[in-house]
């Protein structure tokens, strides 16, 4: 479990996160939702251990800042794509923490092959990553995270650049990981998808957490609507599945 207590983050004199006290349970998928500028990406960087903070963020009782003993995978929204590195080499970087840099074992190479197959990248191993489409690059990033066999995986908008078909494909891959007991924390703009996949939703706005709890109750909460200035509607399909849509403003004529 990650216990966050009175978390504050200030960057260049500006308060980005303030007064956050929540718990992130192990083995569950928690999703951060909220408008742009709510501090979702900064909270992900705090959980990774790269953003300095005041207060306390403890994973199994140990502060996470600059703690590299944990095996945490990070999938950024806009990755730096190295010129000319092949898909296989890029995905293999995920083994660095387990095998040492550039020392993948034979077992690791077999594992990499199986992950490439799972993420539909098999056959593209030698293709330079610079030539991948948005969807292929996203799958490559997910493959690298899967190869890492992390205890916690952090994803910043993993589906934002993808069409619906590929969104479901990526999220299904993450669900397989979750079934194996890996803790997942992601940000997602599509709240319908967040409610479909994540077990917990954490609603944020202006650096604060408005509410967090099980997806099915949060999706109907007034705080979710408040986070988006009451400009969303939540419908429930016959199957019981909630759908969140933006409300169209009526223009005065």
């Amino acid at each position, binding site marked *: 479990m990650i216990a966050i207590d009175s978390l504050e983050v200030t960057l260049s004199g500006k308060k980005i996160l303030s007064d956050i006290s929540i718990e992130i349970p192990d083995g569950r998928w928690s999703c951060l939702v909220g408008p742009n500028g709510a501090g979702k990406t900064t909270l992900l960087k705090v959980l990774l251990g790269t953003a300095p903070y005041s207060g306390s963020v403890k994973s199994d009782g140990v502060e996470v800042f600059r703690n590299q003993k944990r095996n945490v995978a990070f999938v*950024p929204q806009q990755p730096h794509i190295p010129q000319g590195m092949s898909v296989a080499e890029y995905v293999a970087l995920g083994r660095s923490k387990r095998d040492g840099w550039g020392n993948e074992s034979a077992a690791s190479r077999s594992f990499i092959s199986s992950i490439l197959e799972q993420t539909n990248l098999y056959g593209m191993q030698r293709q330079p990553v610079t030539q991948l489409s948005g969807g292929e690059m996203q799958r490559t990033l997910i493959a690298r995270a899967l190869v890492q066999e992390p205890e916690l995986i952090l994803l910043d908008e993993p589906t934002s650049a993808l069409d619906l078909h590929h969104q479901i494909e990526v999220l299904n891959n993450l669900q397989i990981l979750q079934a194996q007991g890996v803790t997942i924390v992601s940000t997602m703009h599509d709240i319908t998808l967040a409610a479909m996949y994540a077990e917990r939703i954490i609603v944020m706005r202006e650096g604060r957490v408005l509410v967090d709890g099980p997806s099915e109750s949060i999706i109907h909460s007034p705080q979710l609507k408040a986070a988006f200035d009451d400009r969303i509607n939540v419908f429930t399909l016959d199957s019981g599945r909630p759908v969140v849509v933006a409300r169209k403003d009526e223009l005065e004529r």
Partner: protein
Amino acid sequence: MSSSEQASTSSGISPIWNWRITALCGALLLVVGLAAISFGPINLSFIHIIKTLARLPGGLSGQDKTVLIDLRLPRAILAALVGAALATSGAVYQSVFRNPLADPYLLGAASGAGLGATIAITNAHGNVYSLLPIFSFIGGTLAVLTSFFISGRFFAEPQSLLLSGIAVGSFATAVQTYLQQRHSASLRPVYSWILGELTVANWQIVTWSSVYILMAIGILIAVSKQLDGLMLSDEEAFSLGINPNRLRIIAVSAATLATATAVSASGLIGFVGIVVPHLVRGITHRVTNRNLLTISLAGAAFLVLADLGARTLLSPAELPIGVITAFVGAPFFLVVLRKRRTFSR
């Protein structure tokens, strides 16, 4: 096929093949090294050279032995050291700054060293060449330290170091030009040094430059595999077990030490730091820093060969080695770029 080779092939990662290229570059260095100490105004036979170096009976004696031991051998070794230093530093800078056009002279090392050398030449009374390495080493190191100091934001954004390096370099070049204009008699020796030369090579220069260059290359090869992580964002590198800021400081410091030493030992030899890393990457189709040792050996072989050309093409006159590296390097570079584009299509 062994199980590990099968796994390598199916995952698309084949480290074994990479070692073959490394061994090939090592062998190439030995061959061109032997050629470099053999050919010149006086040709020495391979057998006699090997016998002399192995201290076997029947080796060279008299003037031939002096040519081999005191002239050609230190010159070939210095060329190899400088070539390895420039190629390795170039490859490392390209990774650290995520810029394929980064070269070893980027942070002001070259301009600072040039200014140091100009100060030595314009103010020297007597044997200027004994002072050149010291002045240019101090000048190059001071310029890089100034770049570090001015950038300040190195930890937040490596590109700011690159920009302050360009500013410091331009300033040093301006001061150098001013000094040259005021001491017009010194123009020729300064330009000769700027174009790069290995004629001053002796065992003293080889000894002190080898200490710094081998130490720097050793450090860079030790961290070379981790350097791949710097091609990602800092967050991704951290998640893969790297401390990106610490690694950047180690890599840039070692690469700068190698560059400053190379510049102070042999002047400014252009093109090696860009051509050789791209050449090796083009041939191996690998951009990763796993091939840094291969790049070092290829850089050494390239400069030994270039120096052989500089000594023998217009013999007994000598061409500046920088002319050879650019003359040979540029077309080679274009061929590799074209092949790479075809490969990646």
